[in-house]
């Protein structure tokens, strides 16, 4: 017996020495949460696991909103040595599950009644073939319009609720010499705006058909032409120096009064708080024009890879910690998002988060809780990037809306072969 134990110990040591250095009771976690607040929030999880004697092997890969992490992850999986868990966006969870790389935590999920406490749209990404493969950490909402309250008050403006109203407000601001829209010309930011315009002009059913189902008729419709017309109009509302600007610099323009509005997800709250301003008071948060009642979302998941038997218990310990109400509360407080668990009390969150929660409940009830294309919950990465290409090229050139629609159809077709 002792011999067997020793042999197994030696084998484990040898394997781990070769592979990663992680022992059986460790979880190795690949993520891109390296910024101060996020890293602190992750500590909550680490400490919770340490309390259960599960070590945390950190594998942070910063950069590119996770694209650097994805490259690393591919290399690890291709080498047959996946991490215990990796931070992934919804569509990537699905793509990894299709490759057959993910494990199965269904027993845990069934015991914990996860399906009952999570919105169905989130469950759809966390499961594959009726098996649970991932646990959600947060729900972000990309379709916010952030408004500098002081500028609006001085000029007697009210927050726009449709794109026509937005255009009126923006024109009025422009006449006063204020940049109406703070924007950074990077493909994902262009796409964040595009999401809002598709949803705001076409409504939730059109968004579902055109974006999530990539329906050729919807993509080529007159509604889509109007969407690109509005994108062209928006191009006139940004300053000359927008191209290549990072999103947080665009947020700063709204904060210091250089620009009046920004279309950005709720991670912008971090910047607002850091500038000693209050979200919901100094900087108003309203649903992007015409999208009230609908909720675009993106969720960070921890996807659990198919690991050796002896690592399963540590993996399950981590999954249940991620789903614990305490962690979800603490993490989302810092991150600016809201907990995916609907039974977590967030009454101590800020005003924008409370509105987000109400809107989420409403959208979830009437089926307008939709995955965001710009943030990896609308389409597979090949189709997503093909749409980015067209949206960005149209926004940065004088391409006509008709041509853009044709390009869009072509691009989606050739990317989804």
């Amino acid at each position: 017996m002792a011999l067997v134990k020793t042999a197994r110990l030696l084998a484990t040591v040898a394997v781990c020495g070769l592979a990663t250095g992680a022992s059986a009771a460790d979880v190795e976690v690949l993520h891109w949460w390296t910024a101060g607040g996020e890293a602190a929030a992750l500590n909550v999880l680490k400490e919770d696991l340490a309390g259960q004697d599960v070590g945390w092997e950190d594998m942070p890969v910063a950069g590119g909103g996770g694209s650097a992490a994805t490259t690393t992850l591919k290399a690890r999986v291709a080498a047959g040595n996946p991490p215990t868990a990796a931070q992934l966006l919804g569509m990537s969870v699905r793509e990894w599950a299709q490759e057959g790389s993910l494990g199965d935590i269904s027993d845990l999920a069934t015991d914990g009644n996860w399906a009952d406490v999570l919105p169905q749209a989130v469950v759809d990404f966390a499961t594959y073939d009726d098996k649970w493969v991932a646990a959600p950490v947060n729900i972000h909402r990309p379709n916010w319009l952030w408004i500098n309250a002081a500028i609006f008050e001085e000029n007697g403006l009210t927050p726009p609720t449709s794109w026509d109203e937005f255009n009126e407000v923006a024109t009025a601001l422009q006449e006063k010499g204020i940049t109406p829209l703070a924007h950074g010309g990077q493909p994902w930011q262009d796409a964040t705006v595009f999401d809002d315009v598709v949803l705001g002009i076409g409504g939730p059913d059109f968004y579902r058909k055109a974006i999530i189902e990539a329906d050729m008729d919807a993509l080529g419709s007159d509604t889509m032409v109007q969407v690109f017309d509005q994108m062209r109009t928006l191009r006139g509302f940004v300053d000359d120096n927008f191209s290549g600007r990072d999103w947080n610099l665009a947020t700063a323009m709204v904060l210091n009064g250089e620009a009046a509005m920004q279309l950005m997800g709720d991670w912008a709250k971090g910047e607002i708080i850091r500038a000693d301003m209050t979200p919901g008071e100094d900087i108003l948060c309203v649903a992007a024009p015409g999208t009230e009642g609908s909720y675009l979302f993106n969720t960070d998941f921890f996807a659990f890879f198919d690991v050796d038997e002896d690592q399963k218990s540590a993996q399950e310990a981590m999954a249940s910690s991620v789903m614990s109400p305490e962690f979800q509360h603490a993490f989302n407080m810092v991150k600016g998002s809201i907990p995916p668990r609907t039974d977590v009390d967030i009454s101590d969150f800020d005003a924008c988060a409370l509105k987000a929660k109400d809107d989420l409940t409403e959208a979830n009830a009437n089926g307008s809780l939709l995955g965001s294309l710009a943030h990896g919950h609308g389409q597979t990465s090949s189709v997503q990037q093909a749409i980015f290409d067209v949206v960005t090229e149209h926004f940065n050139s004088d391409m006509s809306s008709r041509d853009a629609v044709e390009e869009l159809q072509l691009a989606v077709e050739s990317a989804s072969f």
Partner: protein
Amino acid sequence: MAAHHALSTKARLRVLLPRIVLSPSLALVAIFVYGFIFFTTYLSFSDSKMLPSYGWVGFENYKTLFSLRMWDIAVTNLAIFGILYIVICSVLGLFLAILLDQHIRAEGFIRTVYLYPMALSFIVTGVAWKWFLDPGIGLEAVMHDWGWTSFQFRWIKDRDMAIYTIVIAAVWQTSGFVMATFLAGLRGIDGEMLKAARVDGAGTFAVYRRIVIPQLRPAFLSAFVVLAHMAIKSYDLVVALTNGGPGTATAVPSTFMYSYTFTRNQMGIGAASAEIMLLTIAAVIIPYLWSELREDPR
């Protein structure tokens, strides 16, 4: 007897040592260069999407590649960038070398100044030029601060001109190196011949045009080969300077390859584009190597 034996061991070691020392690096090159070239070639004919997969699809990926607008844009950009980069670098490098060759004072110092950009990585060059060319904080902002408010230089934000900012940064980085190459060539020219030409009444311009420059053929050739493959491989400079933008205005084949292989989960198409780049570089390098090897026995 024993001494004789020791000697022969020593002699044998002397023969074997270079092989022993070289063999690990040979093996590494065989695996990590040629092995992966072969692997990528196979992938370009496979149905690989997110991870390598081995289903054979023939020339499907190449067909798709050549039907993609992004690829057209990338190739066109490479043509513009490559031609301008090589021509400007060569002309500027030659010009600087000729000026330096006039036996001026502090030549060593000036030569070092021009060579220094080469010591920087392209990432550093890219970031520095990105800030310098940014209208909000760089050259234009400074000119405005100094009171020249009508000054405009916003190429980096302009779709049609952005590719030229990459040429500017790349030329800044490498023309010093080309200068050094030409300078070495100039120093190798026989002074007697130049004196003879002067005696025959040739002016400075004629000496350079008819005697010096024709003799720089090998220097031109190596400069061309180095510049051409740097142009085709250029990735870090583009990523740091414009990241392919504004829009898709400065996409080049290398950024295309990275994007399709690693972020768009279309590894087959990414591998196909890598093959096209490899073939393009081979088309430059192989004739060069061939001519070098052929001339060698001489």
